[in-house]
């Protein structure tokens, strides 16, 4: 027949297990029963469980509140998966800081769908940055002609900043990336042809004079 102390100790141990099942902190129970070494052994095991659970609980609660720097309980196997989770979260925090600082060379491995999503995001950001750089370089190359350009209404020469008059082609070539290829439009072609015909007729008429 168990004595009163025996019953009390079992009840206390049971209460601690009930606390743990309810997600609450447990308390260690002193079990020193000269008559029942097995009860003492059970008491020690429950106490170890209570201590490990309490440490793990504090750790995971801090982690859940976003305190990633919380030191993990050492040599606590109950907390092992949470320690692995903490390592992953710390790594992701570092990764995010790297991206914020413009480092797109890092990749996340073996974190399931998260790895795929995260790496796709980094690659997209890297591509965006590459495009922005190309765009900036292209913009730097292009020279803009802006504002009011003073032009002669008769000969179409342009006055530059040095108060010197330049041919239209020369001015535009110097102030933009455009180049000129010279041709002749149909209207001018007709005019030039007509002028040349007139000149030729004059020359022939001069030749016929005695």
């Amino acid at each position: 027949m168990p004595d009163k102390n025996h019953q009390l100790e079992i009840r206390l141990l049971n209460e601690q297990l009930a606390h743990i099942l309810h997600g609450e902190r447990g308390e260690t129970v002193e079990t020193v029963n000269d008559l029942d070494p097995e009860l003492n052994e059970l008491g020690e095991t429950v106490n170890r469980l209570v201590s490990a659970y309490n440490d793990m609980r504090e750790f995971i609660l801090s982690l859940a509140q976003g305190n990633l720097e919380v030191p993990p309980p050492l040599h606590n196997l109950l907390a092992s998966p949470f320690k692995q989770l903490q390592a992953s979260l710390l790594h992701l925090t570092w990764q995010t800081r790297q991206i914020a600082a413009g480092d797109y060379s890092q990749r996340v491995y073996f974190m399931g769908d998260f790895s795929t999503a995260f790496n796709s995001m980094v690659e997209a950001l890297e591509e965006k940055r590459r495009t922005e750089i190309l765009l900036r370089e292209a913009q730097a190359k292009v020279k803009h002609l802006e504002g009011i350009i003073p032009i002669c209404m008769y000969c179409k020469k342009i006055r530059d900043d040095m108060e010197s008059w330049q041919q239209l082609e020369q001015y535009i070539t110097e102030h933009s990336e455009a180049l000129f290829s010279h041709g002749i439009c149909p209207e001018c072609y007709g005019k030039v042809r007509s002028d040349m015909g007139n000149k030729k007729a004059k020359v022939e008429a001069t030749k016929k004079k005695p």
Partner: protein
Amino acid sequence: MFKSEFYRFSWKDLGDIEAGRPNLGNLMNVAVYRLMQYTLRDVLNRHLSVEKATELLREAGKLAGTEFCANVLDRSLPFNGFVADLQEKLLSLKIGVMRVEKSDLGKMEFILTVDEDLDCSGLPLADETVCEYDEGFIAGVLEAYTGREFDAREVDCWASGERTCRFRVTARE
């Protein structure tokens, strides 16, 4: 050559594995690697001391890290690119999954973790850290890259029940 007191390791001593193992190839079981490492540790512990054995393993790891950096990694990369290269090489050679938790380039202090570590992941729990070879390896890699001396210490290990190996790495003053 190998048995000379003047022998010093060189990367070419790893040999032409493709030519030497045309049928068996370049891969082997992780247990075989561990068999060599832990039997070596056994003998070193018994013939020297645990402290000396630990020191020698760390020193060998450092030599390996230095050579690995010089022969496998791209030292011309800026630091962030170098870390990415190291991470990728450790992964492709199946040494482990290295992740950075913290880096302070000003102070040259880092916290790294290695998951699925070649040396220890899956070992029986022993309430102690065992990755001294890795400690030396990490310090050696960083020394070869920066030209500064580093100390790497394992603060969490699979063998101590932490599931991931965590290393605190600091440059010496």
